[in-house]
């Protein structure tokens, strides 16, 4: 049960849940969280792969983990930018509704 496929399925599941959150929610905050969710889901896959390949991996023993660490950094920076954009929008237009951002079209 605690095997690679299970971990991968879990990862895929969490990824899909994240996708659902992004697709279905209107609240920008929740959408941003769902995006974090997606990245985290991938992290599980990365770490599990890293674990099973640990001894033979070309990328080194900790390749997957290091990759994950980078993803953490990326996620943090992304969250910073995302949240500041959110702030900009909130300050000027007082909304956190994704659908209100629709003036540019065509």
């Amino acid at each position: 049960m605690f095997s690679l496929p299970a971990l991968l399925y879990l990862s895929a599941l969490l990824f899909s849940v994240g996708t659902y959150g992004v697709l279905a929610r209107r609240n920008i905050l929740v959408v941003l969280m769902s995006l974090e969710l997606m990245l985290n889901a991938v992290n599980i896959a990365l770490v599990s792969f890293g674990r099973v390949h640990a001894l033979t991996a070309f990328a080194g023993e900790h390749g997957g983990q290091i990759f994950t660490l980078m993803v953490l950094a990326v996620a943090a920076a992304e969250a910073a930018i995302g949240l500041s954009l959110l702030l900009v929008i909130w300050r000027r237009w007082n909304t956190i509704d994704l659908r209100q951002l629709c003036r540019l079209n065509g």
Partner: protein
Amino acid sequence: MELTISGAEIVAILPAGILVVTGLVQLFADLGRSAEDKHSEKTHLAMIGVTGFLLAFAALFVQGSEASAGELYAGAMTDDLFGRMGAGVVIMTGLFSTLMAGSYLASRGSNSAEFTALISFGAGSMALLCQATNLISIFVAIETLSLAVYVMAGYFKDERAASEGAFKYFVLGAFSSGFLLLGMAFIYGATGGSVSLTDIAASDGQQDTLFSVGTLLVLIGFAFKVGAVPFHSWVPDVYQGAPVVAVGWMAVAVKASSLFCLCRFLLFTGGGNDLAQLLAAISVVTMLLGNLAALNQQSLKRMMAYSGIAHTGYLLIPLVIALSGDGPSAAASIPFYMFAYAATTLAAFGVLAAISVGSDRDQIHDLDGLAKNRPLLALGFTVALLSLAGIPLTAGFIGKLLILSDAIQHGFLLLALVGIIASLISVYFYLRPVVSMWFREPKSSFELVSASWGITFTVAVCGFATICIGLFPDWLIDLSKRSVEAILG
């Protein structure tokens, strides 16, 4: 265990390093001044930028002692001609964008220090992306440049359009990053824990389903970056909302670096016929949709956005050819086309910047009578549009010639035909600004703000380059061919 950095590694990182340092210098040079003089052109920033970019460009010509061979930083990057060409496109674009940014931003009352710094940082990461050879560095570089571009797109934080565009870009970008990352994870898993492209190419996991899906997901991530259908939705909105200079910058640099990287990635991983077929489908839809949707646009920036999408479609053709295994050398048209596209697009966005200085005019009819008021700008824009349309004597023509010629040579007649039909459609909308500029009388109330020297210089140089590449493309074609041969070894 100790840390060793070889000379070749230093040489390889030199352009990117110089660019990052340039960004830092720009930031420091502006410390404490940003508050009061938002309307100043801040020539010193442009000067620093120009110096930095020129230095970086010069660094491209510094040959590492161990030539381009070998993997540097444990396979994280390489230093071959292909990467250098990519870096070259990025650096030149950065140079001109920096030149244009000062006056444009000043006219909008925006501080340009962060903007120019973001260009420099972005250029650094793009240069690295062009040279990156492992999944982690690719991912981080692509995220770095994306973040820089998100911020630049929403740089006018008081304008709804800019913020909206930037946010759309951000959400969709992060969404696509998820898929990109998932794809990388799959590849990592399927190839026995490889992140370096050479390891991936060497591993025997290439036949695995997971690997195929992973490659596809990575492709999707890149497809988003270059604006291929159906991952193109952000392009028009972001282009319309973002500051013109930022649009020019991302239209060229983001697309160029992503394509260079994608090209390298696909050449290494192979991907096989299945992927080629999918890519061909994407290419066809992209060419058609891009050109068709551009037909009735009133906003120039939006039109250029769809035109950019369409050009992505053309640019995917060489990848299809390369992927299908027939002729990896077909990818040689990508570096060439990117150079041509860069010159052309920068000239076009220079003119757009010129007309929107001090206001946010970007409608086609805002160009009315430009040929009478500013013949040089009008000429530059015309050359750019003709080049985009692929009319002979321009760089765009040679680019199309290369791509279509390869497509025909390798039997992709359908792609070539769609390409031709698409460019036929494109002729119509590329001519609309020409009609406005040359055939219509200027509106009486419309007075052009005098274009700054940076913008004029950009338009002139890029327009001239467009023609020059169109007339004497030999050296560039040669270089492109050699660069692709270099990655293939």
